[in-house]
């Protein structure tokens, strides 16, 4: 783990996980990805606790790709927890979901999500979305400086 984690992928479904990773591999960012499989693990990672207590708030991932439907703690709860804590609220979070529910969209933005993407059904389009996503958040977007992640 010498290289900093650039993408935290929160995904419980193995198919989605494999397809997302497949798409990311095509664009050579797979080695900077960390995958967590449920909400609890995601929160542990983001709040540097449990198995991730060696991590620090000052070096968060450049972007979190968050599924909404997750075991134990769902995506909206994670979003709420991250965006209401001064140590983590600057971490960019992109919701990636297959849900078309209007209320998920509204609730996500109300919680302060940075981007909301509905996974295209068509895999070609999906790959294109992943490509653009990686390019945008890892290459174009200016990440928040470490001072944005204040210790309480």
């Amino acid at each position, binding site marked *: 783990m010498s290289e900093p984690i650039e993408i935290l992928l929160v995904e419980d479904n193995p198919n989605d996980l494999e*397809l997302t990773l497949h798409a990311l591999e095509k664009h050579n960012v797979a080695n900077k990805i960390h995958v967590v499989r449920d909400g609890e693990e995601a929160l542990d990672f983001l709040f540097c606790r449990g198995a991730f207590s060696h991590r620090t708030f000052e070096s968060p991932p450049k972007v979190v790709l968050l599924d909404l439907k997750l075991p134990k703690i769902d995506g909206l709860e994670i979003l709420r927890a991250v965006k209401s804590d001064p140590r983590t609220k600057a971490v960019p979070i992109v919701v990636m979901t297959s849900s078309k529910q209007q209320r998920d969209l509204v609730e996500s933005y109300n919680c302060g999500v940075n981007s909301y993407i509905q996974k295209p059904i068509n895999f070609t389009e*999906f790959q294109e979305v992943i490509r653009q996503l990686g390019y945008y958040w890892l290459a174009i977007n200016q990440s928040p400086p470490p001072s944005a992640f204040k210790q309480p």
Partner: protein
Amino acid sequence: MKLSDVPIRRKLTIVMMLTSLVALVLTAGAFTAYEFVSFRKNSLQSAQTIAQITAAQTSAAVDFDDERTAHDILAKLHAEPAILQAAVYDRSGKLLAHHPADSPASNFPISEEPGSHFEASALRIFTPVELDNRVIGSLYMKWDLRPAYGRFRLYGLMVFCVLLGSSAVALVLSHWLQDRISRPILELAATARSISFKRDYLVRAKKFGNDELGSLTDGFNHMLTQIHQRDAALHENQEKLQHALETAERAADAVRALNGELEQRVERRTAELQSANRELEAFTYSVSHDLRSPLRHIDAFAQILEEEHEKQLSAEGKRCVSRIRGGVQNMGNLVDDLLNLSRVGRAELQKELVPLSPVVEEALADLRTETKDRVIEWSIAPLPAAYCDRGLVKQIFVNLISNSVKYTRPRLRAVIEIGSISIDGGNGFFVRDNGVGFNMKYVAKLFGVFQRLHRPEEFEGTGVGLATVQRIVHLHGGRIWAEAELDKGATFYFTLGQASLPEKMS
């Protein structure tokens, strides 16, 4: 006590007594006055006559200044006791003789001018004594009027007695007469009072004659009969009303009980419905999420197979993968359409006045991918505004126009017409095409969910689009129907209920 409060019996008596008394007093007063005046006149006349005779007799004595003769003549007046005094004066006013002779001369007045005047109880007269039409002296005479006044008093007393007697008779008469008038009235009053106390409308007032009071009594009795009848009817109605009221009260109780029950039931049902709605929403959510995800996976892996493992696949293998992806595509559309249908079913209408021409333009823009490679002759009339849910009505146009585009595909020159017509006094809208149409005997199946009139190889579709359109139209309180002929084309008409009523707006 005011006269109006006096009992009628006494009132009648008073009236009769007053009238008779006034008449009597006036009559008696007139008689008495007349008697008094004529009495004085008679007294004066006779006194003057005697005075003039006496004056004539004494004229010679006065002329000769013969006191003795004058005295003798005056002494004869003794025969008339009413003559209190008499005196004769000569021309110079000297007292010549007087009567009574024994009375001192100082008791007699000095001679005065001729004339007469009445004193309290006496009459004084001065008469000239004349000889050959010459006044040679004067005669004085004083008459006692007391006996005369005594007679007059007696007369007055008699008149008073007559007055009293007449009044007594009038009183008796009036008493008797007023009874004739007042008794029927009093009887009537007593009857009325007793009726008003006892409420016994069978009592009748006694009739005393056929005069006005008799008719009044008849009228009163007739009125009683009517009141009795009305009372009976009223009583009956009251009982009926009471009965009806009781029935109504019982019904109201029942209704209240039912209402309570109904309310509870409605609450229960509402709760059930809400929970059902929540379940439905959860179901919709899971369909959208859970059903779509595996589809996406199947398609994605099939695509990876197709693109990255092409070399390992035989021609048949490739065909199979392609069929898998086609099936996934179909199912994806089906899930989308079903979700859309269920969303429409649950939608709350957001009605506003919507100009429909821009809505149709938007619908056409949405369908651009389907129409870009086609030759279609559009005929779109200006549409009026409608009071409706903009998004849902746009969906109607999208679905209907997309159908027309789809089913005109075999035509080299497709013609699609959109317009409005007047239906049921309001605006109706239609989408017409010259496509493949359908047989009208299947028209009933047209709007059913999953109902299709074409094989999928001919025209793709899920059989949900028209069902969705129908649901939106029904939500608006409108209706939808179709006319078609096989191989000639189809026309779909719809209204938006009250929404599409008046107001033309291009």
